[in-house]
């Protein structure tokens, strides 16, 4: 296999879709990661939920949120990729 052939393969790895779609995907992926990294934002005791301090339930709650946002990103990426 020559370098040129692989080059063509690499091109086919390019993400299809409009710029708008790409921006939406980037946001859906980045928002949870940024929130998780902003530790001072959630490093507090209250408000509590079922006796659990904020730090713990906030992070757990964001697992659900990130699953939802990531699923949105995955659906959009699958649509952009095309095919069945």
């Amino acid at each position, binding site marked *: 296999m020559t*370098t040129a052939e692989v080059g063509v393969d690499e091109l086919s790895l390019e993400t299809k879709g409009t710029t708008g779609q790409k921006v939406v995907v980037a946001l859906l992926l980045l928002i949870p990661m940024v929130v*998780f990294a902003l530790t001072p934002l959630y490093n507090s005791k209250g408000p509590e939920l079922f006796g659990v301090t904020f*730090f713990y339930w906030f992070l757990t709650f964001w697992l*659900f949120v990130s*699953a939802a946002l990531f699923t949105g990103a*995955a659906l959009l990426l*699958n649509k952009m990729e095309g095919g069945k």
Partner: protein
Amino acid sequence: MSSTFNIEVFAVFVSLFVLFVALGFGASRWRRGDMNDLGDWALAGRKIGSYLAWFLVGADLYTAYTFIAIPESLYIKGAVYFFAVPYVGMTFGVALITMPRLWKLSRKHNYVTAVDMVKDKFNSRSLATIIALTGIVAELPYIALQIYGMQAVLTIMIGQLVTSNAATITEVALIIAFVILAAFTFTSGLRGAVVTAVMKDVIIFATVIVVIVLVPMYIGGFGNAFTAMATAKSHPVTGSYQLSGLFLNGFISLTIGSALALYLYPHAINGVLSTSSTKKLRMSTALLPIYGVGLALLALFGVLAYGATKALPLIHTYGPVTTVPALIYAYFPPWFVGFAFLGIFIGGLVPASIMAIAQANLLTRNVLKPYFKNITPKLEARLSKYFSIMFKFIALAFIFVVLPTYSLQLQLVGGIIILQTLPSIFLALYSNKLNKWATGLGWLAGQITGLGLLIDANFIVSHGTSITTVFFKFSTPLGFFYAGMIGILVNLLVVLVGSMVAGAVRPNAVASPGTSGRK
């Protein structure tokens, strides 16, 4: 507890273990392929759909790390080890970006491991060998952690059942379990792991939900546990259930470091490559943070234990490594204890099997085969099966020799090592401009920095005899940092600067993909 209680626990545990073993051996018939082919044995014929991929990758990730190591660490040190929750949230974002691309490249070029890609991209057999060996070494402490988890369950179950020789019986039981595991990994390969992963996860999920609902009720609410933890005097370092300022950076660096590390592990990539399409891969990955909820609840068991007065004596007797099994043992009927213990036990066994398969793959395909060209595909598959047995027993030996203060450190040391493969794997996915020498040098600089800081913190600064911390302490206000994160920053700097310099001096010296390997 009465002896009938303990016999009932044991009976349920053993019965379910027999079922587990039957499933493991029976799995070789499932979607049967040619078991003499490595892609078939190690990647289950690449036929895994979204639903099973979810369980398989879940089985990789939710292991004794989740059931034993994180709750134990939370119990001992407090809030800083809740980093595992943002870590799992973040890591699937990383995976959604990188893994479909690796999947496509692999399908196109018939890669079975990420190292196949490294060899192609950099056109360097030596760099590929280094990355393969790094993966193999980094998996060992991770497998050892699984064994610690299994041992924790057996310690309580057997310790309560017999009056003498509990330690010896526990060791023998562990070895028997490993022989059985080795036998079914040998015959069923990744299929065995996938099928048993479903059983394991169903048991674990049921257990976690029951415990997290009922135990707070028994102890008068979660608030009591937090109060008890705040007044307990065992957290001189991290400041109980809140993060102290000194540990903010420790928390963030552990989170980001672990999130970047996970999908560099050979076993995680193995799971990814076994899925049947990029669409299914994306969907199962996107939903994996839900799986992390189980992890978050289990981590909270480390707090809950403080309020669980019936479990505390057990934890004091058998050690904090038994936090989760002790809680279950103290508050539930024997049939449930046996059921839950089996879940935790196979929660260590199944991932150990997956990890050993990934190591074996790397050793035959990426370390031996490039130097011994006459290895046939049939021999390659055969060798891998034998190596998978060898690695399980190396890890088993590991835990009889190495004594960490707490089990999580094993995984975090593995993290320092595997993180240094990030430029060769993740960056190489996107760039053809990386220089192989710069990448190799970056790897070396990263390992020396990361492991050097680890040795410094444990053996030089504190004169310890075992690994008790993975943090390097900067002067305030920076505070603690995960050594692996410092290592990868040094590594990236060397790789990027080195590649730029090499590219400027000799443009032809940069990696040109695809000139080696399959003709």
